[in-house]
């Protein structure tokens, strides 16, 4: 078993028009136990090990070994990868996702070697509690040869379970519109798009697609509004929380109004997170960008009007360390006679962030690294629009478009 205790049945190839029947058979047929993810099945199996106990239905069936299986489903999750290479880690990631958020998963993979549209079905299960009961989700893989992608939206539409929320996770680093109209067609079938702007093959342009969707989603009438989530924004949550708490007006009166400098350091590929954090501070504290300095290699300067004065921001990429944001330093004017004060926030260890303020002891926040699958799983039930994200994104984009000095 994987660390999370996730097991999956061996994928069963099926004709596309037999998918629903094959899924039903997964729950109907008693069959040998599932094998761990990635491990060869001793005897190819197409059932999770017992009859069904649908989360929304009644019967409990005992499997051959006396255990129970519950089919659970909170959402439809459509995942797109542009190639088999991009999809390689997906089976394990899907296990992580459905363990936290049971869903019918439709994995769409662009595959030049496929013959038209090929399908397979799998049950992904994990043990619940100590009772030995297994909670299972359905996983359908659709591999589409070039040209066959056009049939994906119609196939997906037929496979979505009605009356459930549907999300599209664009798991490819290729910008969505590089795949032609496919993204728009898939997105129109769902009500939630998840994307990782930090993973884009074009980091500088990574913000643009999500900014456009977020803006469109925010402006459209409610039925057509698509909820947009960016995993890069989600990764910043512990940073935002720690900064908000450390500079809380009750604790540091006046600090937020008198900030004068912000320095952000990030690892390779972390520039989007740095932009988003700066965009967040600018949006929440009402700064407007005045100008951007010319980029010098891995460094960039920006100047802001804060209303109370000006603020200088400096972004720097460091080559060592993990990807993502690694350090933030905020400097403000203290009360009269107190000079300047500063707070630094840093990833002190892989599993925690640390805030230092003056000479006091650091404040620590447990922030272990979170895999993208876990981030997706956490994002799926969060079905509210995040105006703070939208504002921060708009500011980040405005910074990118600011006139150079």
């Amino acid at each position, binding site marked *: 078993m994987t660390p999370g205790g996730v097991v999956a049945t061996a994928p069963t190839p099926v004709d596309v028009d037999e998918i629903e029947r094959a899924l039903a058979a997964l729950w109907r047929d008693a069959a040998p136990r599932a094998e761990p993810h990635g491990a060869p099945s001793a005897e190819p199996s197409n059932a999770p090990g017992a009859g069904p106990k649908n989360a929304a*239905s*009644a019967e409990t069936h005992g499997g051959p070994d006396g255990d129970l299986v519950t089919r659970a489903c909170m959402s439809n999750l459509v995942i797109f990868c542009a190639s088999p290479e991009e999809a390689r880690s997906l089976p394990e990631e899907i296990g992580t996702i459905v363990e936290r958020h*049971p869903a019918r998963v439709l994995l769409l993979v662009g595959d030049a070697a496929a013959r038209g549209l090929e399908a397979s079905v799998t049950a992904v299960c994990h043990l619940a509690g100590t009772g030995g009961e297994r909670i299972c989700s359905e996983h359908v893989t659709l591999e589409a040869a070039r040209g066959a992608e056009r049939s994906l939206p119609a196939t997906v539409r037929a496979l979505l379970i009605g009356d459930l929320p549907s999300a599209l996770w664009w798991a490819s680093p290729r910008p969505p519109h590089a795949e032609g109209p496919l993204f728009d067609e898939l997105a129109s079938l769902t009500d939630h798009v998840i994307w990782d702007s930090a993973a884009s093959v074009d980091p500088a342009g990574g913000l643009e697609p999500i900014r456009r969707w977020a803006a469109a989603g925010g402006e459209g009438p409610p039925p057509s509004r698509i909820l947009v989530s960016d995993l890069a924004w989600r990764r910043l949550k512990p940073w935002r929380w720690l900064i908000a708490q450390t500079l809380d007006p009750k604790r540091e009166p006046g600090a937020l109004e008198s900030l004068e400098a912000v320095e952000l350091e990030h690892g390779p590929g972390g520039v989007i997170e740095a932009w988003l954090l700066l965009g967040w501070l600018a949006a929440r504290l009402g700064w407007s960008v005045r100008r951007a300095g010319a980029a010098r290699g891995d460094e960039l300067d920006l100047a802001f009007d804060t209303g109370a004065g000006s603020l200088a921001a400096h972004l720097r990429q460091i080559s060592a360390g993990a990807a993502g944001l690694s350090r933030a330093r905020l400097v403000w004017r203290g009360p009269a006679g107190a000079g300047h004060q500063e707070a630094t926030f840093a990833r002190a260890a892989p599993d925690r962030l640390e805030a230092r303020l003056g000479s006091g*002891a650091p404040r620590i*926040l447990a922030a272990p690294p979170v895999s993208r699958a876990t981030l997706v799983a956490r994002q799926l039930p969060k079905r509210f629009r995040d105006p703070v994200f939208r504002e921060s994104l708009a500011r980040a984009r405005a910074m990118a478009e600011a006139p150079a000095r």
Partner: protein
Amino acid sequence: MPESAAMQVANPLTDGVGRMLLPDPCTLVIFGGAGDLARRKLLPAVWNLLLDGALPSTWAVVGFARTEHDDASFRELASESLEKYSRRPAEPALFEEFARRLFWVRGSFDDPSAYSTLRERLEKIEPTLGLGGDRVYYLSIPPSSMGTCVGHLQTAGLVTPASARPSTRIIVEKPIGHDLESAQALNAECARVFDERQIFRIDHYLGKETVQNLMVMRFANAIFEPLWNQKYVDHVQITVAESEGVGTRANYYEEAGALRDMVQNHILQLLCLTAMEPPWSLSGEVVRDHKLAVLNCLRPIAPKDVEASVVRAQYAAGFHAGIAVPGYRNEDRVRPDSSTETFVALRCFVDNWRWSGVPFLLRTGKRLPKRASEIAVQFKAVPPILFNVDAEAPLEPNVLALRIQPDEGLSLRIATKLPGPKVRIFPVKMDFRYGATFGEQTPEAYERLLLDVMAGDATLFMRRDAVEAAWRWVDGILDAWEAQGLRWLPQYAAGSWGPVEADRLIEADRARWRTL
């Protein structure tokens, strides 16, 4: 509005960060800091709040009791407690940050000088951690010491007025009194020192996710509320079953019994949430007003009716998990002629327009077959026509059951047709389970409740008037029992669902106790 809400507005960076509460920096002083509750629940709760980044920007915990500890040994005790009882383990690197904020003050609850020592220690600790003097006093101590404790807190200058800063709040653990008179006396002692807004009477049941979900289920779904009344509901069953015996709590339990231990607080709180009218706001006072209204509508059980409306019993020897267990009177520190009830079942009514004539059937007991708590709403039977014409085999009525523990969730029993050419009806259960659906570990009730106190939100805590209203109702039963002077109670075998008398109690309602 809680103070914390006002504070969030003042800090633009907290918008959208996703935390419901942003408590002020504060010191938590635990009276009885090395006791069972502190070790099993409170210290693990603080640890898990730290891991979730939910604690204030700075904080401290000070343990206070007569036990011979110092800061170092208290931190060691905390480490052991996390090891044994925390839902997430103590990681060495983070534990240092946790432990350096733990302190110990040794003293007796009835020694005034110990409180001066406590104050001096707090005044030293707090500035070094950037704490402004806001304090929460958790009274995890015997009820008999509470009055003394709050009095000494005041004398030592450890209490500030309700609206003043820094703030002081107290958390009072159950039992809050032994009867109405003692509850009133205890409340009066607290009220002499603290304003009602500063007093948080804790009932950990109210911090449980499923209990909180009860209001969401009722008022965030359109399909239940129209049916939630005497027109459609046949009866309501509330069960809080324990599989354990009296264990090490015999000294307390001998004086309390099941009615005081469970019904007066947990079960009546569940009844209030089930029966209350929709509140017009979710603010603490409004919700608590609506719960109080239910208690005020609870029909008093007249002394002459107690025998017909209430069954009490004691467990006899039997089996638990396949092992023979002794009867209550043979347990350690239980009197051989004890007449303390370990089981109670009640039939009561909420006399208002919504619930007129609907029996509320309550039961709780020790040494029942399993640990399980549930609220079950049984709807009225469909008319005896169409599919329900066979009086010998009536259709099973619909039941909406909310499981509070373990395996939190809800289920709805409905009738459906068995496949085949004949019309055969079979009851099936639509089942929603938190664990299966949401997967993630849910926070312990004490985590939520501690955070609420730090943030000044009293919604999930019991107000004085509600505690006294509950005692007033329970006292009627206790008085009648005392007048009866029974020396031998009905018995039920350990591992069974209670005495046959409990079944007879609800026969008139044509109801049967549910098998959980």
